[in-house]
């Protein structure tokens, strides 16, 4: 089993603050994906990172893939209440995605 540990498990911040969540593994992945899941819905893909050291930006979200392709981070600038949700990282295996434990983010207005 390829485990992905995410930290922190829970995060509650004020609107406008910055935050970073982490995804760490002892395994190397060919690619890594980040998803956001809202209550009562399935996860929705945010980004896929493939190359070690790669950085991708989507508006206020910045994703980084570690040089060794074992870890990743998600940084959110000036958080908004709409960012509230469960953030999941997932490493690509041969036939499936191995999901992390998740970070539950709450942005307080």
């Amino acid at each position, binding site marked *: 089993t390829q485990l992905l540990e995410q930290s922190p498990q829970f995060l509650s911040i004020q609107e406008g603050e910055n935050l970073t969540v982490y995804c760490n593994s002892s395994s190397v992945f060919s690619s890594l994906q980040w998803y956001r899941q809202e209550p009562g819905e*399935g996860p929705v893909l945010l980004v896929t990172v493939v190359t070690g050291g790669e950085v991708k930006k989507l508006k206020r979200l910045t994703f980084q893939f570690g040089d060794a392709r074992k870890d990743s981070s998600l940084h959110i600038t000036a958080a908004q209440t709409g960012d509230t949700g469960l953030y999941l990282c997932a490493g690509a295996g041969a036939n499936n995605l191995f999901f992390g434990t*998740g970070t539950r983010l709450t942005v307080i207005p």
Partner: protein
Amino acid sequence: GAGVSQSPSNKVTEKGKDVELRCDPISGHTALYWYRQSLGQGLEFLIYFQGNSAPDKSGLPSDRFSAERTGGSVSTLTIQRTQQEDSAVYLCASSLVGQGASGNTIYFGEGSWLTVV
């Protein structure tokens, strides 16, 4: 529909009963996945279908769990003799090509909430 459709959305069943969960993937998607998510947790891989290949059943937790995919489209996940620890959200997902393909995007359904009492 445009997305992955799952039914029922909610199911309450008595311990020991069998349940069937249905998934309609996005039309044309060759790959189909089942995951299980316990309350507030990450996703646990159950099974993967890709085209006409033999499914990857390596994630099924016990022989009480089985799944089939008929005609390369609709899939049914069956749980026999349900136990309380089976209570979870069962998520189905599909993708245009297999997981190993570069740039593949997986689309999830809203899930079937199963409660075993």
